[in-house]
């Protein structure tokens, strides 16, 4: 297996989006409410303009909760998942879960006025849910209807809502206020949550669990590697996320304009 760092970079941009599916289960374990509210108050008083992470105190507590859940739940689960499924099966499951998110993607396509993409999303859903065996295969891609992702965070961004401060949520991972709210709204776009029967609830929770495992499994080694090399794992993940998000804001275009200078370039100003 190669490219841990690179894989992590690529996965970082994806995981935030995909993990939206697991948001149901997460917000309960928030630690000591009093100190948390103090943290948030402190954060609200901090000027946000030049601080990348004004809510750091709060976020680090959430991060600690996340690490506990990650070490005791997600990683062992993901390892077990890897042990019992063949690689091809895991790929099929990833596709199935993506297909199951179609209603939410479609709503976001429409809210963004992306009619062409909405058409593609609809065609993909019908092709893959039928000939594609409920989405385990992706014949639509072979027909030239490539998949894409949308979520409500991106919809808000397309409406001009700024991301707000960096936010770390247990199990959801690195995010921002806008994208965190977006993940909540995406749950509301999921038709399954409006069916109040035991089988529907079971399907909903197992899908959330499967999404968590399916996302975490390919990240076992990359994240382990980053953590091992890092003096401050929290700051590393934050930097990777914020750098990746910058690229996302530019719609996937790579720009070098906002990179900081490295070294004293000003000493050469008279030559330029």
């Amino acid at each position: 297996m190669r490219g841990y760092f690179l894989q992590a970079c690529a996965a970082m941009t994806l995981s935030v989006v995909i993990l939206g599916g697991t948001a149901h289960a997460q917000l309960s374990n928030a630690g000591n409410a009093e100190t948390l509210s103090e943290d948030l108050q402190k954060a609200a008083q901090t000027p946000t303009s030049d601080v990348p992470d004004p809510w750091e105190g709060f976020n680090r507590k959430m991060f600690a909760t996340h690490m506990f859940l990650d070490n005791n739940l997600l990683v062992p689960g993901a390892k077990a998942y890897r042990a019992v499924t063949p690689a091809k099966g895991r790929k099929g499951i990833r596709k199935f879960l993506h297909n199951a998110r179609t209603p939410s993607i479609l709503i976001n396509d429409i809210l963004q006025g992306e009619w062409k993409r909405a058409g593609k999303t609809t065609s993909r859903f019908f092709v893959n849910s039928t000939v594609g065996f409920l989405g385990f295969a992706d014949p639509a891609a072979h027909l030239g209807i490539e998949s894409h992702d949308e979520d409500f965070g991106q919809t808000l961004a397309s409406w001009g809502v700024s991301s707000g401060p960096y936010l770390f949520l247990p199990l959801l991972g690195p995010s921002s206020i806008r994208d965190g709210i977006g993940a909540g709204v995406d749950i509301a776009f999921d038709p399954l949550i409006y069916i109040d029967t035991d089988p529907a609830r079971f399907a909903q929770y197992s899908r959330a669990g499967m999404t968590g495992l399916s996302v975490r499994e390919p990240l076992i080694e990359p994240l382990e590697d980053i953590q091992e090399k890092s003096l401050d794992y929290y700051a590393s993940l934050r930097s990777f996320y914020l750098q990746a998000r910058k690229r996302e804001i530019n719609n996937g275009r790579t720009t070098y304009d906002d990179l900081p200078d490295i070294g004293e370039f000003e000493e050469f100003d008279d030559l330029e």
Partner: protein
Amino acid sequence: MIKRPQNITRRLALAGASIAIVLGGAISPAWADRAAEDYIQGILDEAFVALNVENEDEKLDALAELVDKYVDERRVAIFTLGQYARRITDEQKEEFIPLFKKYATIVYQDALSNYSGEHLVVTGSVDRSERDIIVNSKVANARPGDQWAEIVVHWRVYRNRDGSMNVLDAGAENIWLALEQRSQFTSVIANNGGGQKGMDALIKQLRDQVGA
């Protein structure tokens, strides 16, 4: 941009070159820096040889040698301290730089080892300024369907006053190592009392990390 008549020849030449490039099937920005591209390709060719060394220890040594030869670690080290670079003592600085070199070498060894058996080739470059150039590269002849084949690996080249060049940073898909290191280091300093006290904490943690 102000249009000046003497630019016309240059523009025509650029237009001709662009057409040639498009006809050749490659995409390259008009403001590419050929010298920096050649410089990086030379390093990547050396890295390809190093990465094909069978013995793991010898391979790591060869990569460390490349990092030492081409990366301006001193400049990067100071950069990773962010706003604290001006607030620490000279002794702290001199203690930090060799530790950073070791740390950066490990990070580069790790990142490059992932490309064992692969040959990275330069695909183009972008000038941020005459002295600050981004050179992009990709795996040559990647296996079809390899999802990492499309990943662009960037190199940040610094042109010194005398015209010689150094590597300052490496990244993938616009995620850069030195930026991530700065995020970590300034965070460690800030969370350990800031300033010189925080710097002592960073030096200690870095020493533990690199096993020095």
